[in-house]
Protein backbone atom coordinates (compact mmCIF):
# COMPACT_ATOMS: atom_id res chain seq x y z
CA UNK A 1 0.00 0.00 0.00
CA UNK A 2 2.67 2.51 1.03
CA UNK A 3 4.83 1.54 -1.90
CA UNK A 4 1.88 2.05 -4.16
CA UNK A 5 1.40 5.52 -2.77
CA UNK A 6 5.08 6.30 -3.15
CA UNK A 7 4.95 5.53 -6.88
CA UNK A 8 2.31 8.14 -7.50
CA UNK A 9 4.22 11.33 -6.94
CA UNK A 10 1.27 13.78 -6.92
CA UNK A 11 -0.57 11.55 -4.49
CA UNK A 12 2.52 11.37 -2.29
CA UNK A 13 2.80 15.14 -2.22
CA UNK A 14 -0.91 15.46 -1.49
CA UNK A 15 -0.63 12.97 1.35
CA UNK A 16 2.31 14.84 2.81
CA UNK A 17 0.50 18.17 2.55
CA UNK A 18 -2.57 16.80 4.28
CA UNK A 19 -0.49 15.16 7.00
CA UNK A 20 1.31 18.44 7.57
CA UNK A 21 -2.02 20.22 7.66
CA UNK A 22 -3.41 17.89 10.28
CA UNK A 23 -0.22 18.19 12.35
CA UNK A 24 -0.42 21.98 12.12
CA UNK A 25 -4.06 21.95 13.10
CA UNK A 26 -3.40 19.69 16.07
CA UNK A 27 -0.10 21.05 17.40
CA UNK A 28 0.26 24.44 15.72
CA UNK A 29 -1.97 26.43 18.07
CA UNK A 30 0.08 25.17 21.02
CA UNK A 31 3.31 26.43 19.48
CA UNK A 32 1.82 29.72 18.39
CA UNK A 33 0.25 30.45 21.73
CA UNK A 34 -1.48 33.81 21.92
CA UNK A 35 0.27 35.28 18.90
CA UNK A 36 -2.76 34.85 16.67
CA UNK A 37 -4.74 37.25 18.80
CA UNK A 38 -1.96 39.63 19.78
CA UNK A 39 -3.05 42.94 18.31
CA UNK A 40 -0.72 45.81 17.70
CA UNK A 41 -2.32 48.60 15.77
CA UNK A 42 1.03 50.33 15.26
CA UNK A 43 2.11 47.62 12.84
CA UNK A 44 -1.22 47.01 11.12
CA UNK A 45 -1.40 45.77 7.52
CA UNK A 46 2.31 45.30 6.92
CA UNK A 47 3.26 43.43 3.76
CA UNK A 48 4.95 40.02 3.91
CA UNK A 49 8.60 40.21 5.03
CA UNK A 50 8.22 43.89 5.95
CA UNK A 51 8.38 43.21 9.69
CA UNK A 52 11.30 41.13 11.00
CA UNK A 53 10.70 37.78 12.62
CA UNK A 54 9.43 34.48 11.27
CA UNK A 55 5.95 35.18 12.56
CA UNK A 56 5.60 38.04 10.12
CA UNK A 57 6.83 36.40 6.91
CA UNK A 58 3.27 36.49 5.63
CA UNK A 59 2.67 40.04 6.85
CA UNK A 60 0.29 41.38 9.45
CA UNK A 61 -3.45 41.87 9.25
CA UNK A 62 -5.56 44.98 9.70
CA UNK A 63 -5.15 44.77 13.48
CA UNK A 64 -1.42 44.06 13.41
CA UNK A 65 -1.72 40.35 14.10
CA UNK A 66 0.59 37.86 12.43
CA UNK A 67 -1.10 36.41 9.35
CA UNK A 68 0.96 33.23 9.70
CA UNK A 69 -0.09 32.70 13.31
CA UNK A 70 -3.71 33.27 12.36
CA UNK A 71 -3.47 30.83 9.45
CA UNK A 72 -2.20 28.18 11.85
CA UNK A 73 -4.92 28.75 14.43
CA UNK A 74 -7.53 29.02 11.67
CA UNK A 75 -6.41 25.64 10.31
CA UNK A 76 -7.71 23.99 13.44
CA UNK A 77 -11.07 25.82 13.36
CA UNK A 78 -11.48 25.20 9.65
CA UNK A 79 -10.77 21.50 9.90
CA UNK A 80 -12.86 21.10 13.02
CA UNK A 81 -15.80 22.53 11.09
CA UNK A 82 -15.22 20.90 7.71
CA UNK A 83 -14.20 17.39 8.78
CA UNK A 84 -17.07 16.69 11.20
CA UNK A 85 -19.58 18.27 8.82
CA UNK A 86 -18.42 16.03 5.97
CA UNK A 87 -18.22 12.92 8.16
CA UNK A 88 -21.65 13.37 9.68
CA UNK A 89 -23.35 13.90 6.35
CA UNK A 90 -21.32 11.09 4.78
CA UNK A 91 -22.23 8.52 7.40
CA UNK A 92 -25.87 9.49 7.77
CA UNK A 93 -26.46 10.06 4.08
CA UNK A 94 -24.82 6.90 2.83
CA UNK A 95 -26.41 4.63 5.45
CA UNK A 96 -29.88 5.89 4.65
CA UNK A 97 -29.11 5.86 0.95
CA UNK A 98 -27.86 2.26 0.89
CA UNK A 99 -30.76 1.12 3.03
CA UNK A 100 -33.26 2.86 0.76
CA UNK A 101 -31.63 1.63 -2.43
CA UNK A 102 -31.36 -1.93 -1.24
CA UNK A 103 -34.96 -2.26 -0.12
CA UNK A 104 -36.55 -0.09 -2.80
CA UNK A 105 -40.32 0.39 -2.45
CA UNK A 106 -41.75 2.81 0.09
CA UNK A 107 -38.48 3.17 1.97
CA UNK A 108 -36.85 4.48 -1.14
CA UNK A 109 -39.70 6.86 -1.90
CA UNK A 110 -39.71 8.33 1.61
CA UNK A 111 -35.95 8.77 1.71
CA UNK A 112 -35.86 10.37 -1.70
CA UNK A 113 -38.69 12.76 -0.95
CA UNK A 114 -37.01 13.84 2.28
CA UNK A 115 -33.85 14.43 0.28
CA UNK A 116 -35.89 16.46 -2.19
CA UNK A 117 -37.19 18.66 0.60
CA UNK A 118 -33.71 19.44 1.87
CA UNK A 119 -32.30 19.92 -1.60
CA UNK A 120 -34.99 22.28 -2.75
CA UNK A 121 -34.27 24.67 0.07
CA UNK A 122 -31.10 26.49 -1.04
CA UNK A 123 -28.51 25.27 1.45
CA UNK A 124 -26.84 28.60 2.06
CA UNK A 125 -30.18 30.22 2.84
CA UNK A 126 -31.18 27.38 5.10
CA UNK A 127 -27.90 27.91 6.95
CA UNK A 128 -28.53 31.64 7.15
CA UNK A 129 -32.01 31.24 8.58
CA UNK A 130 -31.03 28.51 11.01
CA UNK A 131 -28.03 30.48 12.24
CA UNK A 132 -30.20 33.54 12.76
CA UNK A 133 -32.47 31.50 14.95
CA UNK A 134 -29.69 29.70 16.80
CA UNK A 135 -26.38 31.37 17.47
CA UNK A 136 -23.65 30.95 14.84
CA UNK A 137 -21.41 28.78 17.02
CA UNK A 138 -18.99 26.30 15.43
CA UNK A 139 -21.20 23.41 16.52
CA UNK A 140 -24.30 24.87 14.93
CA UNK A 141 -22.41 25.60 11.73
CA UNK A 142 -21.25 21.99 11.59
CA UNK A 143 -24.76 20.69 12.16
CA UNK A 144 -26.47 22.89 9.63
CA UNK A 145 -23.83 22.26 6.96
CA UNK A 146 -24.04 18.51 7.60
CA UNK A 147 -27.82 18.53 7.42
CA UNK A 148 -27.93 20.40 4.13
CA UNK A 149 -25.41 18.07 2.49
CA UNK A 150 -26.90 14.72 3.54
CA UNK A 151 -29.01 14.37 0.34
CA UNK A 152 -25.90 14.42 -1.83
CA UNK A 153 -24.60 11.17 -0.29
CA UNK A 154 -28.06 9.78 0.09
CA UNK A 155 -28.78 10.00 -3.60
CA UNK A 156 -25.43 8.63 -4.69
CA UNK A 157 -25.57 5.73 -2.28
CA UNK A 158 -29.14 4.93 -3.20
CA UNK A 159 -28.46 4.90 -6.94
CA UNK A 160 -25.45 2.61 -6.60
CA UNK A 161 -26.98 0.25 -4.09
CA UNK A 162 -30.21 0.00 -6.07
CA UNK A 163 -28.17 -1.11 -9.02
CA UNK A 164 -26.17 -3.58 -6.94
CA UNK A 165 -29.28 -5.02 -5.32
CA UNK A 166 -30.23 -6.51 -8.67
CA UNK A 167 -26.81 -8.04 -9.22
CA UNK A 168 -26.20 -11.73 -9.05
CA UNK A 169 -23.90 -11.87 -6.06
CA UNK A 170 -26.35 -9.94 -3.92
CA UNK A 171 -29.13 -12.25 -5.03
CA UNK A 172 -26.96 -15.17 -4.15
CA UNK A 173 -26.27 -13.83 -0.68
CA UNK A 174 -29.96 -13.23 -0.22
CA UNK A 175 -30.92 -16.77 -1.22
CA UNK A 176 -28.38 -18.08 1.25
CA UNK A 177 -30.39 -16.31 3.92
CA UNK A 178 -28.01 -13.50 4.84
CA UNK A 179 -29.57 -10.63 6.76
CA UNK A 180 -30.12 -7.49 4.74
CA UNK A 181 -27.99 -5.36 7.07
CA UNK A 182 -25.15 -7.83 6.63
CA UNK A 183 -25.52 -7.84 2.87
CA UNK A 184 -25.47 -4.05 2.80
CA UNK A 185 -22.36 -3.87 4.95
CA UNK A 186 -20.47 -6.82 3.45
CA UNK A 187 -21.35 -6.58 -0.21
CA UNK A 188 -22.88 -3.24 -1.03
CA UNK A 189 -20.81 -0.92 1.12
CA UNK A 190 -17.31 -1.84 -0.19
CA UNK A 191 -18.40 -1.26 -3.76
CA UNK A 192 -20.20 2.00 -3.06
CA UNK A 193 -17.40 3.35 -0.85
CA UNK A 194 -15.01 4.63 -3.54
CA UNK A 195 -17.74 6.73 -5.15
CA UNK A 196 -18.82 8.06 -1.77
CA UNK A 197 -15.27 8.97 -0.89
CA UNK A 198 -14.87 10.89 -4.09
CA UNK A 199 -18.08 12.74 -3.39
CA UNK A 200 -16.88 13.40 0.15
CA UNK A 201 -13.66 15.06 -0.99
CA UNK A 202 -15.59 17.32 -3.32
CA UNK A 203 -17.87 18.06 -0.40
CA UNK A 204 -14.90 18.84 1.83
CA UNK A 205 -14.18 21.65 -0.56
CA UNK A 206 -17.82 22.68 -0.67
CA UNK A 207 -18.12 22.82 3.11
CA UNK A 208 -15.04 25.02 3.46
CA UNK A 209 -16.39 27.35 0.81
CA UNK A 210 -19.84 27.39 2.39
CA UNK A 211 -18.32 28.29 5.73
CA UNK A 212 -16.49 31.09 3.99
CA UNK A 213 -19.70 32.31 2.33
CA UNK A 214 -21.37 32.31 5.73
CA UNK A 215 -18.59 34.58 6.97
CA UNK A 216 -19.21 36.82 3.98
CA UNK A 217 -22.84 37.07 5.05
CA UNK A 218 -21.72 37.79 8.61
CA UNK A 219 -22.89 34.59 10.30
CA UNK A 220 -19.93 32.26 9.98
CA UNK A 221 -17.29 31.63 12.62
CA UNK A 222 -17.39 34.60 15.01
CA UNK A 223 -14.30 36.52 16.13
CA UNK A 224 -12.17 36.23 18.17
CA UNK A 225 -12.20 32.70 16.73
CA UNK A 226 -10.81 32.58 13.24
CA UNK A 227 -11.15 30.29 10.24
CA UNK A 228 -9.72 30.49 6.75
CA UNK A 229 -13.10 31.41 5.39
CA UNK A 230 -13.45 34.23 7.90
CA UNK A 231 -9.95 35.48 7.03
CA UNK A 232 -10.76 35.60 3.30
CA UNK A 233 -14.02 37.35 4.06
CA UNK A 234 -12.44 39.92 6.38
CA UNK A 235 -9.59 40.51 3.99
CA UNK A 236 -11.76 41.11 0.95
CA UNK A 237 -12.22 44.82 1.68
CA UNK A 238 -8.45 45.26 1.77
CA UNK A 239 -7.84 43.60 -1.58
CA UNK A 240 -6.41 46.73 -3.13
CA UNK A 241 -4.34 47.87 -0.19
CA UNK A 242 -3.32 44.59 1.48
CA UNK A 243 -3.77 41.66 -0.89
CA UNK A 244 -2.06 39.21 1.47
CA UNK A 245 -4.92 39.33 3.97
CA UNK A 246 -7.28 37.37 1.74
CA UNK A 247 -4.75 35.72 -0.57
CA UNK A 248 -2.98 33.42 1.89
CA UNK A 249 -6.08 31.99 3.57
CA UNK A 250 -7.62 31.58 0.10
CA UNK A 251 -4.49 29.74 -0.98
CA UNK A 252 -4.73 27.55 2.10
CA UNK A 253 -8.28 26.53 1.13
CA UNK A 254 -7.17 25.77 -2.42
CA UNK A 255 -4.13 23.75 -1.34
CA UNK A 256 -6.14 21.75 1.18
CA UNK A 257 -8.92 20.89 -1.24
CA UNK A 258 -6.64 20.15 -4.18
CA UNK A 259 -4.57 17.80 -1.99
CA UNK A 260 -7.68 16.09 -0.74
CA UNK A 261 -8.99 15.66 -4.26
CA UNK A 262 -5.71 14.25 -5.57
CA UNK A 263 -5.45 11.84 -2.70
CA UNK A 264 -9.06 10.80 -3.12
CA UNK A 265 -8.53 10.11 -6.82
CA UNK A 266 -5.63 7.88 -5.89
CA UNK A 267 -7.55 6.19 -3.11
CA UNK A 268 -10.39 5.52 -5.50
CA UNK A 269 -8.05 3.63 -7.77
CA UNK A 270 -6.37 1.87 -4.87
CA UNK A 271 -9.64 0.63 -3.40
CA UNK A 272 -11.13 -0.44 -6.72
CA UNK A 273 -10.10 -4.06 -7.28
CA UNK A 274 -10.56 -3.65 -11.00
CA UNK A 275 -8.23 -0.71 -11.33
CA UNK A 276 -5.67 -1.22 -8.63
CA UNK A 277 -3.16 -2.88 -10.94
CA UNK A 278 -2.62 0.44 -12.69
CA UNK A 279 -0.97 1.92 -9.68
CA UNK A 280 1.62 -0.86 -9.65
CA UNK A 281 2.88 0.22 -13.05
CA UNK A 282 5.52 2.90 -13.42
CA UNK A 283 4.00 6.15 -14.56
CA UNK A 284 5.30 6.03 -18.12
CA UNK A 285 3.79 2.66 -18.84
CA UNK A 286 0.56 3.65 -17.24
CA UNK A 287 -0.23 6.21 -19.89
CA UNK A 288 -0.12 3.62 -22.59
CA UNK A 289 -1.86 1.08 -20.49
CA UNK A 290 -5.06 3.01 -19.99
CA UNK A 291 -6.68 2.91 -23.40
CA UNK A 292 -6.24 -0.82 -23.65
CA UNK A 293 -6.38 -2.31 -20.17
CA UNK A 294 -6.24 -5.94 -19.29
CA UNK A 295 -9.39 -7.90 -18.69
CA UNK A 296 -11.28 -6.46 -15.81
CA UNK A 297 -12.14 -8.56 -12.84
CA UNK A 298 -15.50 -7.99 -11.29
Amino acid at each position, binding site marked *: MWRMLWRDKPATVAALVLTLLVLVAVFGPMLIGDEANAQDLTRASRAPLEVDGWLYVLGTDQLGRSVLARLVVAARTTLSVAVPAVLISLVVGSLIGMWAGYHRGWRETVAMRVADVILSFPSLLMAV*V*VLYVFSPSARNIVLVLALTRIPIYLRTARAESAELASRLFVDAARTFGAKSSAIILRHVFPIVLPTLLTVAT*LEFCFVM*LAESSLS*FLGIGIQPPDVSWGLMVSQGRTYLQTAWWLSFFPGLAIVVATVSATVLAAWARLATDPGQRWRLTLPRRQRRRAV*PAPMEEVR
Partner: protein
Amino acid sequence: MLTFLRKRATTSLLPLVAVLLGVFLLARMTGDPAALYLPENATEAQKETFRTANGLDLPVWQQLLDYLGGVVRLDFGTSLRTGEPAAEMALRAFPATLQLALTTMVLAVVISIVIGSYAAYRPNSLADRLASFMSMTAASVPDFWLAITGVWIFAVMLGVLPTSGVDASMLSWVLPIATLLFRPAGVLTQVVRGAMVSALSAPYVRLARSKGADSRRVVTDHALRNAAAPALTVAGDLAVGLVNGAVVVESIFGWPGIGKLMIDSILQRDFAVLQAAVLLTAVTIFVLNVVIDLCYALLDARVRDKALV
Protein backbone atom coordinates in the same frame (compact mmCIF):
# COMPACT_ATOMS: atom_id res chain seq x y z
CA MET B 1 -43.87 8.78 -19.64
CA LEU B 2 -47.08 10.52 -18.62
CA THR B 3 -47.62 8.15 -15.74
CA PHE B 4 -44.10 8.84 -14.60
CA LEU B 5 -44.76 12.58 -14.66
CA ARG B 6 -48.10 12.24 -12.90
CA LYS B 7 -46.63 10.04 -10.21
CA ARG B 8 -43.73 12.36 -9.78
CA ALA B 9 -46.00 15.39 -9.54
CA THR B 10 -48.17 13.83 -6.84
CA THR B 11 -45.26 12.57 -4.79
CA SER B 12 -43.63 15.97 -5.14
CA LEU B 13 -46.57 17.86 -3.76
CA LEU B 14 -45.93 16.64 -0.24
CA PRO B 15 -42.28 17.73 -0.14
CA LEU B 16 -43.31 21.13 -1.48
CA VAL B 17 -45.73 21.52 1.40
CA ALA B 18 -42.93 20.41 3.74
CA VAL B 19 -40.59 23.06 2.34
CA LEU B 20 -43.26 25.69 2.77
CA LEU B 21 -43.90 24.57 6.34
CA GLY B 22 -40.20 24.58 7.12
CA VAL B 23 -39.55 28.06 5.82
CA PHE B 24 -42.71 29.38 7.43
CA LEU B 25 -41.79 28.11 10.88
CA LEU B 26 -38.09 28.94 10.64
CA ALA B 27 -38.85 32.46 9.48
CA ARG B 28 -41.20 33.02 12.42
CA MET B 29 -38.40 32.00 14.76
CA THR B 30 -36.04 34.71 13.54
CA GLY B 31 -37.80 37.42 15.46
CA ASP B 32 -40.56 39.95 15.55
CA PRO B 33 -40.65 42.33 12.57
CA ALA B 34 -42.46 44.95 14.68
CA ALA B 35 -39.16 45.98 16.26
CA LEU B 36 -37.70 46.53 12.82
CA TYR B 37 -40.56 48.32 11.12
CA LEU B 38 -41.63 50.61 13.91
CA PRO B 39 -39.76 53.54 15.39
CA GLU B 40 -37.26 52.77 18.09
CA ASN B 41 -39.48 53.98 20.89
CA ALA B 42 -42.82 52.79 19.54
CA THR B 43 -45.29 52.08 22.28
CA GLU B 44 -46.50 48.57 23.02
CA ALA B 45 -49.91 49.64 21.70
CA GLN B 46 -48.42 50.69 18.35
CA LYS B 47 -46.60 47.39 18.10
CA GLU B 48 -49.83 45.60 18.88
CA THR B 49 -51.58 47.53 16.09
CA PHE B 50 -48.80 46.61 13.69
CA ARG B 51 -48.94 42.96 14.63
CA THR B 52 -52.71 42.85 14.32
CA ALA B 53 -52.65 44.60 10.96
CA ASN B 54 -50.16 42.06 9.64
CA GLY B 55 -51.67 39.05 11.33
CA LEU B 56 -48.59 38.48 13.47
CA ASP B 57 -50.53 38.45 16.73
CA LEU B 58 -52.28 35.17 15.97
CA PRO B 59 -50.89 31.84 17.15
CA VAL B 60 -48.40 30.44 14.66
CA TRP B 61 -50.61 27.53 13.62
CA GLN B 62 -53.41 29.92 12.78
CA GLN B 63 -51.06 32.15 10.79
CA LEU B 64 -49.98 29.02 8.95
CA LEU B 65 -53.53 27.97 8.17
CA ASP B 66 -54.35 31.47 6.93
CA TYR B 67 -51.24 31.43 4.79
CA LEU B 68 -51.91 28.00 3.33
CA GLY B 69 -55.47 29.04 2.65
CA GLY B 70 -54.09 32.03 0.76
CA VAL B 71 -51.65 29.87 -1.18
CA VAL B 72 -54.47 27.68 -2.41
CA ARG B 73 -56.10 30.82 -3.79
CA LEU B 74 -52.68 31.84 -5.20
CA ASP B 75 -52.48 34.68 -2.70
CA PHE B 76 -48.98 34.69 -1.25
CA GLY B 77 -49.38 37.68 1.02
CA THR B 78 -47.90 41.15 0.80
CA SER B 79 -44.45 42.42 1.54
CA LEU B 80 -43.97 44.24 4.84
CA ARG B 81 -41.23 46.29 3.28
CA THR B 82 -42.85 47.52 0.09
CA GLY B 83 -46.52 46.65 0.46
CA GLU B 84 -46.43 44.89 -2.91
CA PRO B 85 -47.78 41.37 -3.43
CA ALA B 86 -44.99 38.96 -2.46
CA ALA B 87 -45.55 36.70 -5.46
CA GLU B 88 -45.12 39.63 -7.81
CA MET B 89 -41.78 40.53 -6.26
CA ALA B 90 -40.52 36.96 -6.45
CA LEU B 91 -41.64 36.53 -10.06
CA ARG B 92 -40.04 39.82 -11.04
CA ALA B 93 -36.68 38.83 -9.56
CA PHE B 94 -36.80 35.28 -10.88
CA PRO B 95 -35.86 35.75 -14.57
CA ALA B 96 -32.67 37.64 -13.70
CA THR B 97 -31.39 34.67 -11.69
CA LEU B 98 -32.63 32.14 -14.22
CA GLN B 99 -30.75 33.88 -17.01
CA LEU B 100 -27.56 33.91 -14.96
CA ALA B 101 -27.90 30.29 -13.91
CA LEU B 102 -28.83 28.93 -17.33
CA THR B 103 -25.99 30.69 -19.11
CA THR B 104 -23.57 29.54 -16.44
CA MET B 105 -24.70 25.91 -16.62
CA VAL B 106 -24.59 25.75 -20.42
CA LEU B 107 -21.08 27.18 -20.40
CA ALA B 108 -20.00 24.87 -17.60
CA VAL B 109 -21.27 21.78 -19.44
CA VAL B 110 -19.60 22.75 -22.69
CA ILE B 111 -16.30 23.63 -21.05
CA SER B 112 -16.22 20.50 -18.94
CA ILE B 113 -17.04 18.15 -21.82
CA VAL B 114 -14.36 19.66 -24.02
CA ILE B 115 -11.62 19.82 -21.41
CA GLY B 116 -12.71 16.68 -19.56
CA SER B 117 -12.75 14.40 -22.57
CA TYR B 118 -9.59 15.89 -23.99
CA ALA B 119 -7.85 15.16 -20.71
CA ALA B 120 -9.36 11.69 -20.36
CA TYR B 121 -8.23 10.69 -23.78
CA ARG B 122 -4.64 11.31 -22.81
CA PRO B 123 -4.58 10.24 -19.16
CA ASN B 124 -1.58 11.35 -17.16
CA SER B 125 -0.23 13.48 -19.95
CA LEU B 126 0.91 16.99 -19.15
CA ALA B 127 -2.33 18.39 -20.57
CA ASP B 128 -4.36 16.03 -18.40
CA ARG B 129 -2.53 16.91 -15.25
CA LEU B 130 -2.73 20.60 -16.02
CA ALA B 131 -6.47 20.32 -16.69
CA SER B 132 -7.00 18.39 -13.47
CA PHE B 133 -5.02 20.84 -11.43
CA MET B 134 -6.75 23.88 -12.92
CA SER B 135 -10.20 22.40 -12.48
CA MET B 136 -9.52 21.48 -8.85
CA THR B 137 -8.25 24.95 -8.14
CA ALA B 138 -11.19 26.56 -9.88
CA ALA B 139 -13.59 24.54 -7.78
CA SER B 140 -12.06 25.68 -4.51
CA VAL B 141 -11.86 29.46 -4.70
CA PRO B 142 -14.41 31.41 -2.62
CA ASP B 143 -16.85 33.10 -5.00
CA PHE B 144 -17.01 36.47 -3.28
CA TRP B 145 -13.22 36.71 -3.43
CA LEU B 146 -13.32 35.94 -7.14
CA ALA B 147 -16.00 38.54 -7.69
CA ILE B 148 -14.15 41.33 -5.94
CA THR B 149 -10.82 40.41 -7.52
CA GLY B 150 -12.56 40.35 -10.90
CA VAL B 151 -14.00 43.81 -10.36
CA TRP B 152 -10.61 45.10 -9.31
CA ILE B 153 -8.70 43.62 -12.25
CA PHE B 154 -11.15 43.99 -15.12
CA ALA B 155 -13.03 47.12 -14.14
CA VAL B 156 -10.61 49.18 -12.09
CA MET B 157 -7.19 48.26 -13.48
CA LEU B 158 -8.00 47.36 -17.08
CA GLY B 159 -11.25 49.27 -17.43
CA VAL B 160 -12.63 46.80 -19.97
CA LEU B 161 -15.74 45.65 -18.09
CA PRO B 162 -18.38 47.44 -16.05
CA THR B 163 -18.03 46.83 -12.32
CA SER B 164 -21.60 45.78 -11.68
CA GLY B 165 -25.23 46.37 -12.45
CA VAL B 166 -27.48 45.15 -15.23
CA ASP B 167 -27.86 46.99 -18.47
CA ALA B 168 -28.55 46.44 -22.13
CA SER B 169 -24.99 45.55 -23.07
CA MET B 170 -23.87 41.99 -22.52
CA LEU B 171 -20.64 43.21 -20.96
CA SER B 172 -22.27 43.56 -17.55
CA TRP B 173 -22.94 39.81 -17.67
CA VAL B 174 -19.32 38.81 -17.98
CA LEU B 175 -18.15 39.22 -14.40
CA PRO B 176 -21.18 37.69 -12.63
CA ILE B 177 -21.21 34.70 -14.97
CA ALA B 178 -17.47 34.22 -14.79
CA THR B 179 -17.70 34.26 -10.99
CA LEU B 180 -20.52 31.74 -10.94
CA LEU B 181 -18.87 29.58 -13.59
CA PHE B 182 -15.65 28.70 -11.76
CA ARG B 183 -17.02 26.14 -9.37
CA PRO B 184 -19.43 24.18 -11.61
CA ALA B 185 -16.96 24.15 -14.49
CA GLY B 186 -14.17 22.93 -12.22
CA VAL B 187 -16.22 20.21 -10.58
CA LEU B 188 -17.85 19.03 -13.80
CA THR B 189 -14.53 18.83 -15.62
CA GLN B 190 -13.24 16.46 -12.95
CA VAL B 191 -16.38 14.37 -13.10
CA VAL B 192 -16.39 14.16 -16.89
CA ARG B 193 -12.72 13.28 -16.94
CA GLY B 194 -13.13 10.57 -14.33
CA ALA B 195 -16.16 9.07 -16.01
CA MET B 196 -14.49 9.18 -19.40
CA VAL B 197 -11.40 7.43 -18.16
CA SER B 198 -13.53 4.58 -16.83
CA ALA B 199 -15.70 4.51 -19.92
CA LEU B 200 -12.73 4.40 -22.26
CA SER B 201 -11.38 1.37 -20.46
CA ALA B 202 -14.71 -0.46 -20.38
CA PRO B 203 -15.00 -3.72 -22.31
CA TYR B 204 -17.53 -2.54 -24.88
CA VAL B 205 -15.38 0.46 -25.82
CA ARG B 206 -12.43 -1.82 -26.28
CA LEU B 207 -14.69 -4.03 -28.34
CA ALA B 208 -15.68 -1.09 -30.51
CA ARG B 209 -12.04 -0.25 -30.93
CA SER B 210 -11.04 -3.73 -31.78
CA LYS B 211 -13.77 -3.68 -34.41
CA GLY B 212 -11.88 -0.82 -35.93
CA ALA B 213 -14.04 2.18 -34.96
CA ASP B 214 -11.98 5.34 -35.21
CA SER B 215 -11.05 6.83 -31.91
CA ARG B 216 -12.98 10.10 -32.22
CA ARG B 217 -16.19 8.17 -32.80
CA VAL B 218 -15.41 5.96 -29.86
CA VAL B 219 -15.13 9.01 -27.64
CA THR B 220 -18.27 10.71 -28.85
CA ASP B 221 -20.53 7.73 -29.43
CA HIS B 222 -19.67 5.33 -26.70
CA ALA B 223 -17.60 6.81 -23.94
CA LEU B 224 -19.29 10.18 -23.73
CA ARG B 225 -22.74 8.66 -23.55
CA ASN B 226 -21.65 6.47 -20.68
CA ALA B 227 -19.96 9.32 -18.95
CA ALA B 228 -23.13 11.37 -19.26
CA ALA B 229 -24.99 9.60 -16.46
CA PRO B 230 -22.68 10.50 -13.56
CA ALA B 231 -22.06 13.94 -15.06
CA LEU B 232 -25.78 14.55 -15.22
CA THR B 233 -26.28 13.85 -11.52
CA VAL B 234 -23.48 16.17 -10.53
CA ALA B 235 -24.61 18.83 -13.00
CA GLY B 236 -28.06 18.76 -11.43
CA ASP B 237 -26.64 19.29 -7.96
CA LEU B 238 -24.40 22.06 -9.23
CA ALA B 239 -27.33 23.77 -10.90
CA VAL B 240 -29.21 23.67 -7.63
CA GLY B 241 -26.11 24.98 -5.88
CA LEU B 242 -26.04 27.96 -8.21
CA VAL B 243 -28.83 29.47 -6.13
CA ASN B 244 -26.27 29.66 -3.30
CA GLY B 245 -23.76 31.33 -5.56
CA ALA B 246 -26.48 33.68 -6.71
CA VAL B 247 -27.00 34.95 -3.16
CA VAL B 248 -23.38 36.08 -3.00
CA VAL B 249 -22.89 37.15 -6.60
CA GLU B 250 -26.13 39.06 -6.82
CA SER B 251 -25.34 40.92 -3.62
CA ILE B 252 -21.96 42.03 -4.89
CA PHE B 253 -22.96 42.91 -8.44
CA GLY B 254 -26.29 44.51 -7.58
CA TRP B 255 -28.11 41.95 -9.68
CA PRO B 256 -31.85 42.14 -8.93
CA GLY B 257 -32.35 38.38 -8.73
CA ILE B 258 -34.02 35.94 -6.40
CA GLY B 259 -30.90 35.24 -4.33
CA LYS B 260 -30.62 38.88 -3.39
CA LEU B 261 -34.35 39.05 -2.79
CA MET B 262 -34.20 36.10 -0.41
CA ILE B 263 -31.28 37.37 1.62
CA ASP B 264 -32.84 40.85 1.80
CA SER B 265 -36.15 39.46 2.93
CA ILE B 266 -34.40 37.49 5.67
CA LEU B 267 -32.59 40.60 6.85
CA GLN B 268 -35.82 42.60 6.71
CA ARG B 269 -37.90 39.84 8.30
CA ASP B 270 -40.16 40.13 5.27
CA PHE B 271 -41.70 36.69 5.75
CA ALA B 272 -44.20 36.68 2.90
CA VAL B 273 -41.54 37.53 0.32
CA LEU B 274 -39.13 34.95 1.73
CA GLN B 275 -41.83 32.28 1.56
CA ALA B 276 -42.82 33.17 -1.98
CA ALA B 277 -39.20 33.22 -3.15
CA VAL B 278 -38.31 29.92 -1.49
CA LEU B 279 -41.44 28.27 -2.86
CA LEU B 280 -40.61 29.50 -6.34
CA THR B 281 -37.04 28.17 -6.17
CA ALA B 282 -38.28 24.92 -4.68
CA VAL B 283 -40.69 24.42 -7.58
CA THR B 284 -37.92 25.22 -10.04
CA ILE B 285 -35.58 22.75 -8.38
CA PHE B 286 -38.30 20.10 -8.51
CA VAL B 287 -38.82 20.68 -12.20
CA LEU B 288 -35.08 20.51 -12.69
CA ASN B 289 -34.88 17.21 -10.82
CA VAL B 290 -37.70 15.76 -12.85
CA VAL B 291 -35.96 16.80 -16.06
CA ILE B 292 -32.76 15.18 -14.83
CA ASP B 293 -34.60 11.97 -13.98
CA LEU B 294 -36.18 11.97 -17.44
CA CYS B 295 -32.79 12.44 -19.07
CA TYR B 296 -31.49 9.65 -16.90
CA ALA B 297 -34.26 7.32 -18.01
CA LEU B 298 -33.71 8.18 -21.66
CA LEU B 299 -29.98 7.79 -21.37
CA ASP B 300 -30.32 4.52 -19.53
CA ALA B 301 -32.53 3.05 -22.23
CA ARG B 302 -30.13 4.06 -24.94
CA VAL B 303 -27.13 2.75 -23.11
CA ARG B 304 -28.85 -0.56 -22.57
CA ASP B 305 -29.78 -0.76 -26.24
CA LYS B 306 -26.24 -0.11 -27.29
CA ALA B 307 -24.83 -2.52 -24.83
CA LEU B 308 -27.14 -5.25 -26.01
CA VAL B 309 -26.13 -4.85 -29.63
